């Protein structure tokens, strides 16, 4: 009986600061099915859930669940056209994450180059 709880109310019960709500981009990307969905959507054309389910071994429900994870991370956005939801790829969060990691990576390059000068120029 408890299985009959509608999905929507479950979603609303989720506290905004719960780990689940803190959908991170990395967590969203850490799954083969979701990566496959991103690759499919990366062409830029929006797809309906039915289109994304066609040719997949997963159920419509499972695909929907994965799309919602991507949506919470901002990697895909959902637009309603008539009765159908269509999902579209949004590259911005991935670009920004890459820039952030590149930035930290640059900081390490600079620090390590100072370390190199220190150990190589002090006469051992």
């Amino acid at each position, binding site marked *: 009986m408890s299985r009959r709880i509608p999905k929507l109310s479950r979603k609303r019960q989720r506290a905004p600061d719960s780990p689940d709500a803190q959908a991170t981009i990395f967590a969203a990307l850490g799954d083969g099915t979701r990566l496959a969905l991103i690759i499919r959507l990366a062409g830029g054309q929006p797809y309906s859930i039915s289109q994304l389910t066609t040719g997949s071994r997963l159920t419509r429900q499972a695909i929907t669940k994965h799309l919602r994870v991507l949506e919470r991370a901002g990697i895909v956005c959902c637009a309603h056209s008539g009765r159908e939801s269509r999902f579209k790829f949004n590259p911005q969060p991935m670009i920004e*994450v890459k820039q952030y990691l590149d930035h930290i990576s640059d900081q390490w390059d600079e620090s390590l180059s100072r370390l190199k000068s220190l150990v190589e120029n002090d006469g051992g």
Partner: protein
Amino acid sequence: MEHRIEKHIELKAPVSRIWRAITDYREFGEWFRVKLDGPFAVGQVSHGQITYPGYEQLKWQATIQKMEPERLFSFTWPQSKSLDNPDYANAPTTLVEFRLEKTPTGTLLTLTESGFEKLPADWRLEAFRRNDGGWTEQMKNIDKHVAQNP
């Protein structure tokens, strides 16, 4: 997409020299640009003050995880959302590891920083935007300065 940063650098100095440069708190502070309160000790929190020009108001804090002599040095550090009023107690942490290997010409240092998947996406963007530009640019200026004034 990678969840971690990994760097390899060949250093023309023996492993023992590199070990000292990364685990002696004064030497670490010299190249990392931080004034540390005291020596590193496993399980202990290391405190200090960033000495990088323009960022002197920033506090340094890290928890030393492993010190396996001449092999592995690691610490975790909080990634605070706010630079002005950092909340290190509740901040997610990333893990920094330095691994040393002897080579025919000296030492191979492998640096990794991991755990970025723990940071909420919106948080990362804010931290990035706050830092954007200035830090990297200033790092380059200092390097230039050092190169011109040996």
